[in-house]
């Protein structure tokens, strides 16, 4: 900061002061100075432009250019009932996964906030460990756990809850279990940060004013958690829309989601036009939702500006 400030005042006055010092910013016009250092951006910009932006734009263009220019691919995507079903699946799975990961993440975040620091740190470590452990390894594990002769079915049968193995893989149940599991950390981390910032006195005030624990929970605590719930939930919803590995392994053919559909069109049917239309739709939805996510961030009532 200070260095650039002196360079800005630059000119003749500054020159007197730094004249004896070697090699501090040459006295260049200020417009050039503003762009000083911007050259460092070039390698990464070139790289991303060449290998990320150009292919991405190219892909999105194919949706309106192949096989014939026009909106034919989009028409197909919405008119064909099989494709419309893929869209419906994508949203309903993402919605279910968001719901379940919120339900499971909430008590965990709450307990981490409540317990003594040392315990809380250990629980956060478990959350981080599961977040950074190989996605494929965890999905494989669920595949084995949930299969007809798997541990979950055996345990349920031993407990007498069911007397025939449930079908829990290659269907909606498998996808929702596996993906909710994977998304829990993405709920816990933002939610826990929000809860940590809530002043316990507010809740005490609520109970002193006569609120029952239930009223206090629903009317005071939950509204205060809302920023964390919203940002975590929205993030999980967006991520779920674009997930490929877990739905492809744990789901069946009848609940295919948009990412799997795109890959299938490319790899099996070589139908780049339709795949690109699907891709454009997914990118558009993701970016719009992400825009709302960013909008939501600064409005947190327990943010830094309000903290005591």
């Amino acid at each position: 900061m200070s260095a650039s400030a002196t360079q800005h005042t630059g000119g003749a006055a500054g020159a007197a002061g730094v004249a004896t010092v070697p090699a501090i910013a040459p006295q260049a016009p200020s417009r050039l100075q503003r762009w000083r250092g911007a050259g460092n951006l070039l390698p990464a910009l070139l790289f991303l432009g060449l290998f990320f932006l150009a292919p991405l734009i190219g892909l999105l263009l194919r949706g309106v250019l192949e096989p014939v220019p026009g909106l034919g691919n989009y028409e197909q995507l919405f008119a064909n009932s099989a494709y419309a079903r893929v869209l419906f699946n994508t949203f309903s799975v993402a919605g279910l996964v968001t719901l379940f990961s919120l339900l499971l993440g909430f008590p965990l975040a709450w307990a981490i906030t409540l317990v003594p620091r040392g315990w809380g740190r250990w629980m956060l470590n478990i959350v981080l460990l599961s977040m950074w452990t190989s996605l494929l390894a965890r999905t494989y594990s669920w595949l084995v756990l949930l299969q007809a002769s798997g541990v979950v079915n055996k345990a349920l049968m031993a407990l007498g809850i069911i007397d025939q193995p449930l079908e829990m893989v290659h269907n909606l149940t498998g996808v929702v279990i596996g993906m909710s599991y994977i998304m829990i950390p993405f709920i816990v981390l933002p939610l826990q940060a929000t809860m940590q910032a809530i002043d316990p006195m507010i809740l005490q005030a609520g109970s002193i004013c006569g609120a029952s624990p239930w009223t206090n929970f629903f009317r005071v605590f939950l509204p205060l958690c809302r920023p964390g719930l919203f940002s975590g939930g929205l993030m999980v919803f967006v991520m779920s829309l674009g997930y490929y590995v877990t739905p492809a392994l744990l789901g069946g053919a009848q609940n295919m989601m948009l990412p799997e559909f795109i890959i299938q069109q490319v790899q099996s049917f070589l139908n780049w036009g339709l795949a690109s239309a699907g891709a454009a739709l997914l990118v558009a939805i993701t970016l719009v939702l992400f825009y709302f996510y960013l909008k939501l961030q600064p409005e947190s009532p327990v943010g830094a500006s309000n903290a005591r």
Partner: protein
Amino acid sequence: MLLTPNAMSRRMRFGLYFTTGVIALFLLLPIVFIVLLSFGSSQWLVFPPPGWTFKWYGQFFSNPDWMSAALTSLKVAVLTTVCAVALGLPTAFALVRGRFPGREMLYGLFTLPMIVPLVIIAVAVYALFLKLGYTGTMFAFVVSHVIVALPFTIISIINSLKLFDQSIEDAAVICGASRLQAVFKVTFPAIRPGMVAGALFAFLVSWDEVVLSVMMASPTLQTLPVKMWTTLRQDLTPVIAVASTLLIGLSVLVMVIAAALRRRNEISA
């Protein structure tokens, strides 16, 4: 009172802790389960296993396909880490220290690969490399992995560079060092935690990457997750549990290193 455990009713506290315990177990279950199964003697992944064995590890390490996949994974991850840090370092400097307009937008651009679904990046890059005839090469793996690893390194380096007081670097220059010397001898050591964290993130992202790798792979060149993916589609053999355990093991190792480094920095700071 909902945030002070002592003021909560006993029943409520018990309920919350019990639920939490179950959820924490739920988080750990698949990880522990798969590690245990890799030592189980049952071909059909029966649990609890009838006996314990290293048989599957023997099969993994004596199979040239699995070994070459593991080696490729390691090579790709190391190259990705080096490239991501080399590209991320100058970018972070420009974004933190530059005063040019549009920095916010550029920051958004550099983090875009984190937001765009992986499948889309995979298909887009695949289309490009298909045209250029690069699919199934080391180059394709590394380039595609660097795209998704770069945001992690840039963010980590930016975070530690923001904490570094630039006047210290200027002091070195005033004392006679060249700007480059000052950056290498003063600034780099000071922001090392961010550089190391960025490198570790890049390594983990590449080491575990499935979607991009599946699209880039050829029958002769594949990474460990690709080999697991293709094998999984045929059967659930315990050898996959071994590969999973190795993936988990390396991730845990990297996390422990990161935690140890963080603690050392906290103490020295």
